[in-house]
């Protein structure tokens, strides 16, 4: 391995495995003083894992980390801070009931009064102001964080990092919740930091930002180095190519026979993106992949259709009938079911047995006069377990003891005992092993063939390409485009997902 002189930080052959799953494999990375390195890759490519290793949150399974040319171990967040590595997380890490100065010096407050350890109010505000001035921020150091916009809260985090003598700043999607002008401001601040000698590792899905500020691009794909680009080589196409880079062999799903639309969404606006209108159709018997980057607003759209979150505006029509959906109860009454992303939080009542979970949404079938017919319930639950091949010791087993795949099958059993018209899958196979994955795809296809419309939110490119008859791509709360089977390639989806409207 070539050792370049003067690298601030160097990773050699770093690998990370989580319980047998390889998150990073043989990754190398090098950071020099005063440069901005953009780290790009698809969802799940390993960017966040790599950042967490640098930030001391995770330890590498294998590999060497050199700081200032010396082999070092970053065993904790404190170790990382000691090496001058600061971390701005995607989710802000501030106390919103504490003021600006208090946040910057949290845990390191200047004190006086001997054993009383009173906070030196004068000093803490003076010092805080110094760092804010350095960032060109004019906010009162006594303002509570919750009274500041997100962008300012983020600046406070950056000020905190500076106060810790940070030499390398890790920024994980720092602009994901900022407005356009706030983003501009953050980008110019990033450049100023570089000019003052701080090195920055910048993760972003927004390729235009990367293009604007990065000195160098490093791409990860499936946990491995996928190549790099120098300043002159950075372009949208080059970056997308690095991120995608592989060829997949897919089976072609049968095109839907039906032509009438089952679901028509018009002008739907969600609470997360109240200014963006979403409109799209799904035909009966069609599997539509819903692609986009994490946070593009796909889950929010699904929640709105299912009635779990109240939409700001818009109409939802099913089989030509206008629906008024204000709660999941309404959606379920019209045959719209959601298989949510977070199975344990919203999909299942994990401490209840399989039997009670499979029948929870259809109790009226297993009861007379409000009293449960336990025999009928048991028979039905056993039948579904057999039909969907749920691996369990008995239907009385609490679902929390089941594997992810079997939990997913229990949720499916819950809905399929009713008569679905539209099924919304949110990340249907996340955390599910390969065998169960195939079974779920199989089921999905059978359902579509029987005329059910399926909306499949997925961040797994292979899944989107392999299972959808059509792909709708979202970007920052809006529909970026819709791709037919023949135009649907990983490259085309990625282009739409990052907001780069390619000619297709």
């Amino acid at each position: 391995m070539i050792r370049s002189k003067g690298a601030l930080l160097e990773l050699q052959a770093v690998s990370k495995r989580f319980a047998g799953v390889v998150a990073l494999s043989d990754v190398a990375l090098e950071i020099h003083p005063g440069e901005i390195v953009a780290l790009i890759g698809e969802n799940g490519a390993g960017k966040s894992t790599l950042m967490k290793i640098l930030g001391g949150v995770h330890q590498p399974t294998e590999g060497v980390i050199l700081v200032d040319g010396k082999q070092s171990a970053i065993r904790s967040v404190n170790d990382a801070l000691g090496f001058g590595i600061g971390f701005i997380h995607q989710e802000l890490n501030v106390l919103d009931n504490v003021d600006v100065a208090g946040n910057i010096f949290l845990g390191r407050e200047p004190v006086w009064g001997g054993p009383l350890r009173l906070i030196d109010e004068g000093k803490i505000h003076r010092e805080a102001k110094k760092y804010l001035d350095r960032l060109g921020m004019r906010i009162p150091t006594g303002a509570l964080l919750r009274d500041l916009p997100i962008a300012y809260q983020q600046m406070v985090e950056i000020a905190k990092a500076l106060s810790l003598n940070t030499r390398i700043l890790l920024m994980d999607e720092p602009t994901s919740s900022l407005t356009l002008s706030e983003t501009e401001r953050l980008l110019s601040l990033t450049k100023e930091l570089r000019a003052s000698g701080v090195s920055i590792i910048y993760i972003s899905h927004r390729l235009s930002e990367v293009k604007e500020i990065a000195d160098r691009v490093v791409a990860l794909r499936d946990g491995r180095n996928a190549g790099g680009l120098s300043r002159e080589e950075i372009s949208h196409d080059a970056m997308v190519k690095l991120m995608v880079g592989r060829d997949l062999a897919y089976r072609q799903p049968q095109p839907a026979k039906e032509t009438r639309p089952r679901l028509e969404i018009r002008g739907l606006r969600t609470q997360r993106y109240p200014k963006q209108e979403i409109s799209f159709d799904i035909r009966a018997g069609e599997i539509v992949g819903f692609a986009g980057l994490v946070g593009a607003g796909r889950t929010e759209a699904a929640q709105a259709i299912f009635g779990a979150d109240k939409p700001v505006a818009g109409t939802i029509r099913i089989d030509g009938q206008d629906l008024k959906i204000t709660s999941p109860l309404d959606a379920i009454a019209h045959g719209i079911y959601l298989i949510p992303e977070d199975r344990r939080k919203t999909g299942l009542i994990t401490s209840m047995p399989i039997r009670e979970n499979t029948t929870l949404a259809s109790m009226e079938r297993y009861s007379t006069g409000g009293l449960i017919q336990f025999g009928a319930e048991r028979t039905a639950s056993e039948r579904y377990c057999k039909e969907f091949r749920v691996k369990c010791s008995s239907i009385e087993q609490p679902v929390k003891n089941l594997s992810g795949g079997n939990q997913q099958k229990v949720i499916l059993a819950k809905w399929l005992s009713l008569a679905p018209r539209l099924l919304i899958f949110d990340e249907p196979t996340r955390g599910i092993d390969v065998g169960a994955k195939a079974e779920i795809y199989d089921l999905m296809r059978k359902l579509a063939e029987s005329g059910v419309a399926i909306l499949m939110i997925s961040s797994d490119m292979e899944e989107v390409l392999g299972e959808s008859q059509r792909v709708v791509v979202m970007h920052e709360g809006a529909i970026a485009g819709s791709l037919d089977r023949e135009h649907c390639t990983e490259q085309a989806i990625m282009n739409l997902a990052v907001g780069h409207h390619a000619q297709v």
Partner: protein
Amino acid sequence: MKKLLLKREFGIFVLLLVLCIVVAALNPKFLGAANLQNIGRLIGMYGIFSIGIGLVIMTGGIDLSIGSMVALLGVELAMLLPHLAWPLAVLAVLGTAVVLGGLHGLLITRLGLQPFIVTLCGLLFYRGIARFIANDETKGFGDARGFELLQNLATGRVLGVPMPLILLLIVAAVMWVVLHRSVYGRYLFAVGRNEEAARYSGINTRRMIASTYVLSGAFAGVSSILLAFYTNSISPSSHGNFYELYGIAAAVLGGCSLVGGEGSIFGIVIGTALLQVLQNLVNLLGIPSSLNFAVMGAVILIGVVADRLLKNR
């Protein structure tokens, strides 16, 4: 069998039996007819409102207003009976109870207020109103006539069994079916265990939660009538004091978790019985009555600690 032994209800049931045997051995008066009847009456009156509080707790809520509600409803009953036919007075009392419970439910589910706060305000508010409308004077039934039947229903005995205990057994039987055999009960446990997942399964979680406050109010209404005739005089500043805590203690002893989703009717009834036997024990064993609460607190703590240690084993 092993499963049964591990259940909280079973442990508390054994504790109750042991306690009864110990007290009976130390003071044979415990098994006297008069003493057993008195305990039975108290278990009946406290058990009915405890079941209501237990239902609320099973959804993950809490009802602190019951004691004050009992006082307010007692005052209301005493003030109405001389002027109204007793069935109407009873209806008015139960109606008030249901309306107040419904109000708690609405504030909690529609405005998203915390149950602790809403019912704490109830605790303060109803006590104040009770004292105000009674002019802070003790209300009794005096020599008013015309409601002997109601009085008998509330304080009488059938085959030596006090009416309140019979009423509790009826309420418990009905609520056992509702909680452990009906769709309502299934939904109640589902909401208590995971409200979001229950909502995503199409359960009207708000209505479920609100309904438990209505039931809690209604059962407090029934208890308040029994208690009014039991004490026969209602001092608005002290009547019903701490009763909500008896209810919460009974529910927790009986296996309800304050997080929600756990509990049984049987457990609540046994929990209530245990508390009453403890009170009785203090009297019968010549323990200074000032230690009453200390004994109760200590036994509840021991019960909960033992339960936790056994579960962790």
